[in-house]
């Protein structure tokens, strides 16, 4: 483990918050995309059958 010295909190918190925000954004993007795709697919399948 690298030694961050007395600024460990600032560095780790920055990376923590930054990565958490990025991760949240990526997750939200993928989830919304999957939801939209599923909704569209089920709808298209239904209208094909019906």
């Amino acid at each position, binding site marked *: 483990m690298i030694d961050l*010295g007395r600024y460990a909190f600032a560095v780790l918190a920055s990376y923590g918050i930054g990565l958490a925000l990025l991760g949240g954004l990526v997750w939200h993007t993928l989830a919304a995309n999957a939801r939209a795709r599923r909704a569209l697919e089920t709808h298209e399948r239904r209208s094909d059958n019906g």
Partner: protein
Amino acid sequence: MSLWEYANPVRFMQVSGRMLPWVAAGAVIGTVGGLGWGFLTPDDFRQGSTVKIVFLHVPAAMMAINIWVMMLVASLIWIIRRHHVSALAAKAAAPIGAVMTLIALATGALWGQPMWGTWWEWDPRLTSFLILFLFYLGYIALWSAIEDPDSAADLTGVLCLVGSVFALLSRYAVLFWSQGLHQGASLSVQSGERMSHVYRYPLYLAMIGFGLLFLTLLLIRTRTEIRKRRLAALLARETRA
């Protein structure tokens, strides 16, 4: 074959679908590589280990501004040529920009606390970013408030144009209003020569990574919007039939 062909939603879906894996791979390599490499850089003799925050802060701040510019361009294309994909891309970009602004503000505060001895200072750059964040919020709120998608695209487009002018005005007004703590160019690319190579290359990699990450997310989000729009159109057709 012109650039405008990509404005066709079907064509856009095809091309973006083919592009996505590559762009996403580049984004992962750039972001993870840049941040990981940055995290492993040696401490700066003045800033200590806080120099590692730069690799998050600078790319995020850069993207926060560039995304607004991209939204401005997309809004202009929508207003002038009425390509739906363009309007949807502007809509898709706004939340990414807001998150980037938030990251820049949060990492800036965390860096400022040990370095300047304060979490927050009403310094021109910090204040400008706060104002930029407010503009992003207003833009997103206006999109979500209007139901008719074309009206929403028009109104947010106009807001983006006016907002850009006033964001720029605020930037210079704020400069007039307070002299800052924030170092001018020592952290920016233009004067990269003032930064040692040890920090410069990972920073470049992280910046490329963030750019590609934005592109990836933008493509996915735009595809989401197109699908949503298509579903809404199908439903509307059914209820009419």
